[in-house]
Each structure stands twice: as C-alpha cells, then as structure tokens.
C-alpha cells in the first residue's frame, strides 16, 4: 500500500474512533453507591461563548475543591461526608450541543444535580430533558424571563440563581432615568423634562428579546421620560456591527442600550467609536462584567456603563466584600487572573448545592429539590435582597440588589476599570458624562 494511502486510512480511522468514542461512554454508577456527590456543570466550553464557559467551569472547580478540602458534603442518610465530583457538560454554545450534554450528564453520568447554563436559547432547549428526568438544576445563566416563567413544561426542579431580564432591565432603565437623563440635559442645556432617546441593539435570542421587552415595559409602566428610538436586532455571534451602528446613528439617539454576549460587545463598542465615529454612551448588561471584556475592549471602553451584580474589579463595600476579595484572590492563585460575573454565580451555585444536599440529608432528587425550594442561606459575594439566598415561591428565582459601574481608563494596566456609580448606597463615585460624548439632536 502506498504511504499516502496508509496516512489516509489512519486519518479515516482516527475520525471514526472520534465519532464512535463520543457515543460509547461507560455508564456511571449512582452517587450513593460511589460515595460522592456528582454535579454536572453545563458550560459553553467550545463555540461562541467559550470564554464565559471556561469562567463557569473554573469557578465551579474552585468551589468544589474548597468544599472537598473542608471535608466534603455531609449526607445524613449515608452517615458520612462525601466529596463533590464535577462532570463537565460542554453545550458547545448551541441548543443541540446543550441537549446532548445534558442528556449525557443525566442518563450516562447519573449526576445528582446540575449547575450552570449560560445562553437563554441554549438553556431553554434542554429544559425539557431536565423536566422529564426530574433532576435538580441550579441555573446561573439563562436570564430571559421566558426561560424561568415558562408554563409549557414542569420547571419545578429548576432554580434560577440570577436576576431575570425584567430585573436587570428595570435596574438599567431606572439608572438611565435617575442619572443619565438629568446629566445629559444639564450638560447640554436641554429642558429638564426632555426625554432621553435610547437605541436598543439586542441579540436576536430569548435573552435579547427579554431585555428589549423589559426595557419597554418598565418605561411604559412607570411612564418614564425615555424614548426608544431604535430597536436593532443582530444574530448571535455577530462580529460586524458597522452597518447596524450606522443605521442607529442616523436615528440620533442619546445613548445605546446593548444586549450582547461579551464577544459581541467588544467589536460593537470598538466599531461604534473607531469606525462609525459614534460618540455616544453605551450601556451594557451584567454578563459582560468579565476580565476578558476589559482586556478586549481597550481604550474604546472608556466612559461606558454596565449594569452588574458582580464585578471583578469593582467590589462593593459592605458585608460581601471580604468573601468577594477572598474568591478573587483564590481564583487568581489557582488560574492566574480574575473570574467574571458568570463565574461568581456558578461558584455560589456549587455552595447552594452543598447547602441544599446537607439540609436534605440525602441525595434523593425529590428531597434535594424540596430543600432548594425551602433554602435560606446567607448571601456570599453577590448582594441579595434581604441578605439571603432564597428562591421565590412562584418561579424559583433568587433576587439580587443590582448596581451600575462606569468604566474609565487605567493607565497602569492599559485597560478600562469599573467603579460603582449607582445606586447611592453602593456608589464609589458619581457618574460622569465623558468629554467626547455627543447627544442626539434635541
């Protein structure tokens, strides 16, 4: 056989083994028999959201390592403490990938509990598998209200440790009304009652549409003097926003409200200032509060604002400060760098899982579910309503005190850094309209 033919056969064999290998995983024993708590972590390890996926996985690992170092999870029915074993489920940043990963975690790996999930579109696609198999799932992403409020399937085993799009949309709009609008009107001599014109550029997904709906609903419900002058969707994973920005600029908004993943926000911000010469204020959503965003956006991020609940570089003063700094320091020691918001939420979710299993005293899924439903544990790093992590009785959502950061260039690192500018009780400094900012025409 010629040498090239041998190489071809080898390559073909590798491919066949790769394909077959994925389908021939050995079925795992149930946890009670194997003496461990098996937690499936649903994260986008590959594909468009892989940067966030890595953050989710590493933070979960950090939490599990800490818990195991302290002796593991106490399970009364076993009469002993057992370690946590994490099993990675890569959703490949796609609906199909998520369904495949969750099916494998539940049916082959026999996990006791699931944690994670990022994109609302991806989470909504695998919710039916979770519902069917009745596995407790602490979802730290999937922020669209349409994911947690759906009534076409049984979501009673799903617990949402994140603000939904209604919560984050409301916080953002209140900030715009209370802070940005008066600042623009005062600086440019506009009448105080002049409405602020906002352009919404949003990912064409449940997450993006949920945010758009929330923004419009809050403005309408509270009769706020804010006018949405443009609603521009873009497809998930987009990296070329020049035409969309040109279209938005032609509508003369005073600011952009962007609903993006961080790999979308980086080019959007850069192209607005650099290519389209659009000197407007950009507001982003909490999932972008990530070291990779600050690194990627560079000088073009200067002056922008972001709704947040956990910031790697802006730690709120108060009862969560020590835990936050400890987490950031431990993460830095283990992985070299800081975690983002999704990492923090997943880290907390692992501790929530531990607390719920210990309170249940068993790994029985129904008991763990009931324990999660009745959970009331002290807040950790993210500031919770009432200082307690608990899930609402209606849709099993935890409730957060949200804040807004503003970015300014840090000459030492060459990257922008955030500071909390809203609300008053958390602010490190006041909001400042950038010098280069130009409002829409009055």
């Amino acid at each position, binding site marked *: 056989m*010629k040498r*090239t*033919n041998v*190489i*071809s056969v080898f*390559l*073909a064999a*590798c*491919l066949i083994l*790769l394909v077959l290998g994925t389908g021939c995983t050995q079925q795992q024993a149930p946890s009670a028999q194997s003496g461990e708590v098996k937690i499936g972590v649903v994260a986008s390890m*590959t*594909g*468009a959201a*892989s*940067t966030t996926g*890595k953050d989710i996985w590493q933070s979960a690992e950090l939490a599990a390592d800490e818990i195991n170092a302290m002796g593991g999870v106490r399970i009364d029915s076993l009469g002993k403490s057992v370690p946590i074993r994490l099993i990675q489920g890569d959703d490949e940043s796609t609906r199909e990938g998520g369904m495949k990963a969750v099916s494998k975690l539940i049916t082959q790996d026999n996990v006791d509990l699931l944690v994670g999930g990022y994109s609302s579109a991806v989470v909504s696609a695998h919710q039916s598998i979770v519902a069917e198999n009745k596995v407790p799932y602490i979802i730290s992403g999937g922020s669209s209200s349409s994911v947690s409020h759906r009534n076409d399937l049984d979501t009673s085993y799903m617990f949402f440790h994140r603000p939904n799009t209604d919560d984050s949309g409301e916080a953002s709009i209140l900030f715009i009304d209370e802070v940005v609008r008066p600042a623009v009107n005062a600086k440019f001599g506009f009448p105080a009652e002049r409405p602020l014109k906002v352009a919404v550029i949003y990912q*064409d997904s449940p997450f993006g549409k949920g945010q758009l709906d929330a923004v419009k609903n809050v403005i309408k419900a509270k009769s706020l003097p804010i006018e949405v002058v443009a609603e*521009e*969707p*873009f*497809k998930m*994973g*987009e*990296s*070329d*926003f*020049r*035409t*969309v920005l*040109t*279209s938005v600029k*032609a*509508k003369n908004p005073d600011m952009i409200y962007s609903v993006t993943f*961080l*790999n979308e926000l*980086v*080019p959007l911000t*850069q*192209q607005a200032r*650099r*290519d*389209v*010469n659009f000197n407007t204020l950009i507001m982003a959503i909490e999932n972008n509060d990530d070291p*990779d965003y600050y690194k*990627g956006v*560079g000088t073009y991020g200067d002056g922008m604002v972001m709704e947040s609940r956990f910031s790697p570089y802006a730690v709120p003063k108060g009862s969560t400060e020590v835990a936050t700094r400890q987490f950031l320091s431990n993460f830095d020691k283990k992985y070299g760098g800081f975690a983002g918001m999704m990492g923090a939420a997943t880290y907390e979710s692992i501790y929530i899982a531990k607390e719920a299993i210990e309170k249940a005293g068993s790994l029985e899924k129904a008991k763990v579910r009931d324990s999660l439903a009745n959970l009331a544990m002290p807040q950790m790093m993210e500031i919770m309503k009432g200082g307690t992590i608990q899930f609402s009785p209606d849709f099993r959502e935890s409730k957060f005190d949200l804040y807004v950061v503003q970015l300014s260039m840090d000459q030492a690192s060459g990257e922008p850094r955030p500071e909390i500018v809203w609300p008053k009780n958390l602010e490190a400094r006041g909001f400042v309209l950038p010098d280069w900012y130009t409002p829409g025409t009055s």
Partner: protein
Amino acid sequence: MDVSISILSQVAFWGLYSGCIYILLATGLNLIFGVMKIVNFAHGEFLMLGTYITFFLFVITGFNPYVLLIGSIPILIGIGVIVERLCFRPILGTGKLNEIFISLGLIYIFQNLVAMVWTDEWRSIKSPFADMTIDLGPLQLPLDYLIIIVVTIVILVSLYIFLQKTPIGKAIRATSQNRKGAMLMGIDVEKINMLTFGIGAGLAGAAGTLWAVSGQVFNPYMGSIPAIKGFAIIILGGLGSIPGAIVGGLAIGMVENFTAFTLGGSWKDAVSFILLIVVLVLRPTGLFGEEEE
C-alpha cells in the same frame, strides 16, 4: 430616520469592505474547485488560521499587521500544499462523499489544534491606523478599510497577472479547462493541484489577515460561517469562475449590509441565501458559470 446619500454611501462602503474579505475567500475556493473539482468545507479554517498566524506574528514581531501578509500568505500556501498532498490527493476521484468527510475532519482538526495552541478565547489585534480617518466631505472613512480595499485589489491584480502571464499560471488555467488535455501536453497536473490548493489557502490566509487587521474578533470556531458564505458566493457567481467570485463576493457584501440597514442585522444572512436561490432559479449555472457540454 433621514436616509441621506452620505449614510447610504457609508453602508455601501461597509458592504465593499465585507465584499473584499468574501472575494478573497471565494476566489481561493473557486480556484481550487476549478482545477481539482473538489469541495473543501474546511476552507473557512484557512481564514481562521490566517487570523491566528497574523496574531502570532504581530505579538512576537510587533510589525505593522499589513506587512504580516508577507508571512501569513506563504505560511498558508505551505499549509495548503501539505493538506492537498496528505488529505485530498489520495481520495481525488474516489467520490464526493470522501471529500466531504475529509474536509469535515479537517475542520475539527484545525479548530482543536488552534484551541490547543492559542486557547479558544476571543482575540483581536489593533492596527496602528485604527484611529485614523479620511475625510471625504460628508463621508468619514476609516483608513484601515481603505487600505484593506486597496490590498484586496493588489492581490487580485497580482493573481490575474500570475494566471495570465506566467507559465505556471497558464498551466493552472489549462488544467482547469481540460485536465486530460493538460496531461497530454506534459503538464504535471498533480503538482498543479498542489500549487493551486496552496494558492487558494494563501488567499484565504490573506482574508484572515485583513479580517484581523480590521479589528474584528476571532476564535478557533469563527471559520464556519465565512466558509458557508464562500460557497454561496461561488455558486452565485458560477462554479470555477474567478470573475464570478469577485462579482458574487461584492454582491453578497452589499446585499448583507443594505439588508442589515433596512431590515435589521438578524436578516443579514437570510437575505444572502435568498439572493442565491433567486439567482439559481433564474440562472442555474450562476452569474458567470457556463453550461457543461
């Protein structure tokens, strides 16, 4: 919204820029198809490799990223030659299914190799001309995009001269027109295959460099969508036709951007394929394709 001429010109300019990236990608794809008649779905991975090689050379040398075309094109030509020799030559003429599976396998191999070497984080590089604009009255055009358009024209003119005036270029054209005839005339068609595949990969590599220089982000999985668009363009323009790839690339670039401007960004991809369907219904051989005898 007041739609002025300056805004429409601006959108046309973004369409022209997108078109340049598509043209380079589709021209390479069409060159390979014209000579070898193979379908390489991994062609977008050559673009992705071009972005990473540019990124790597930029980090270690600090050179102007446009100068790095001198590095990225030859490296991609080399990679193309190796891929043709090891993967496509052995299965040439054995059926389309083999070509499809080889190219699908190559997609995974390239994506995972790049993720292993450079991780799968989103990357970008900053051109030294990033903050410079050229004022043309109502139009303010970023310098980088003007350079990208000029560089694309230079590459296409060089390719035209190469194919028309050099003996190797003439041999490529002869092989493309009649493979058996070329063999009878003493042309080593296997070498021409290898070289053509290398040139095709090099053009995709150039597209990758220009993609990176324009400030767009990239990661190991970014090649799939441009590859699909590349295929749409060569079908639209006519399989094997380089003028077709140029006109098709420009058409897709323009249509995408004017669609994003009028209907919104989420329609961008759909309209490109609607255009493709319309052209195929009206002219099944594509805009510049010829009926097979």
